[in-house]
């Protein structure tokens, strides 16, 4: 048996490409959940009333301190015990999003804390509502400096998607495992999966850098 079979490689490539789409889908939806929920967590924790801020801080700490794999299992296998059955892909994306939301919320917290007090005071003096203050004044200034940090979490989330194979989501890793076990050849599928991850990670890092530069050009800081 050859170490590397090119014919086999080209045979499985379309399968893996299809699975890569699932991985991308999980990454993107998961990250959107993480980005939005993370911001909500940060704002709730920093500016919410005590009855919200304190439990939220505890919850964030809890999620951050337990493994993502356990959370995935919990949502997929334990939630049904309470009558909440979630389809594997949805459960996986939810777990990814929630887990990374807690990391993102720390990043947002740093960004929000860096806004000078004068910006808040000017907004109050202009009689703006909290909603408009956040939407138009605070968040647009808080986000650009933290784009690199958020981008890192995007890449990290992407690299954590193979964990979804544990609940049989047909993403790259799961597909590679199935191909491997059906053909008794693991070298090509696993290597290809690694390569695909590498390529996507590099692309994502480049995109993050572009967005960063674009934001810096667009938003002029004093």
């Amino acid at each position, binding site marked *: 048996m050859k170490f590397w079979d090119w014919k086999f490689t080209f045979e499985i490539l379309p399968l893996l490409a299809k699975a890569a789409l699932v991985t991308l889908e999980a990454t993107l939806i998961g990250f959107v959940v993480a980005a939005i929920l993370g911001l909500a967590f940060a704002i709730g924790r920093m500016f919410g009333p005590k009855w919200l801020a304190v439990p939220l801080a505890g919850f964030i700490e809890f999620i951050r301190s337990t493994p993502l794999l356990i959370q995935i299992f919990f949502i997929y296998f334990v939630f049904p015990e309470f009558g909440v059955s979630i389809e594997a892909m949805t459960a996986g994306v939810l777990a990814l999003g929630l887990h990374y939301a807690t990391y993102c919320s720390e990043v947002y917290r740093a960004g929000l804390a860096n806004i*000078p007090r*004068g*910006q808040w*005071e*000017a907004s*109050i*003096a*202009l*009689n*703006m*509502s909290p909603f*408009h203050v956040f939407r*138009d*004044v605070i968040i*647009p*200034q808080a986000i650009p400096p933290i784009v690199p940090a958020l981008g890192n979490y995007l890449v990290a989330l992407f690299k954590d998607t193979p964990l979804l194979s544990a609940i049989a989501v047909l993403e790259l890793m799961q597909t590679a495992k199935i191909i491997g076990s059906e053909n008794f050849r693991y070298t090509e599928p696993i290597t290809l999966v690694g390569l695909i991850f590498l390529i996507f990670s590099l692309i994502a890092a480049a995109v993050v850098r572009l967005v960063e530069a674009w934001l810096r050009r667009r*938003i*002029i*800081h*004093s």
Partner: protein
Amino acid sequence: MSIDASPANSPSNEFSGPMVRFDKVRKSYGSLVVLDNLDLEIARGEKVAIIGPSGSGKTTVLRMLMTLERIDRGVIFVDGEPLTSMNRNDELVPADAKHLRRMRGKIGMVFQHFNLFPHMSALKNCMEAPRTVLGLSKIEAEARGRELLSMVGLGDKLDHYPSQLSGGQQQRVAIARALAMRPKVMLFDEVTSALDPELVGEVLSVIRKLGADLDLTMLMVTHQMGFAKEFADRVCFFYGGRICEQGPPEKIFVAPENERTRQFLRACLEAT
């Protein structure tokens, strides 16, 4: 100046008493008393300069009026209504958000460090609150912003970002931004203190112009004694959290009665 109207019972649009009234207002940070039972009345259209050594509570007066600081005790009335409390069944209760926002709408403030929104152009800075707070359309808000920016002499800098403007220009944008909300009372908190000396004049001449053109009540904390003397109707000298001496500028600057006032003015004179 009429001072006897009972503020609590008068509807604000007909209220003819003082524009601003501090009634035994007290503020402390821990054991440090910043304002000690302050009573102060400012008439409609009056221009009051607040002077005094640092730590005398001058800025706190403005910040409390802008609701940036909590009032520990006492009441501030603006336009006849309590600022941070409201009447309910003849009792003063802490104001709800709606009352606070209505009261804040009467007041505009310009800060020592401008506090412009750095990610918005000069024009956008002036349009933001009129659009989101007053509900003006984009066209209306833009017209208002253009008009005010040209009034402060920045009609050609509409699309400049704060970082592209000098300190004096930024401060003039900040003045235009505050005016865009059509306040009745304007607060100026050491607005020239952060400026290079050669930029002070342009900001003061804008304030002078507002005083002449607009029917505004103005309250300014300033270190520009020359300006206070020429511009203000009344000068209040603060010392240790209370008004040590007040009166028309001719009196305060020419013939101060209080020894502390004299000392302070002498020290200011030596500095220039």
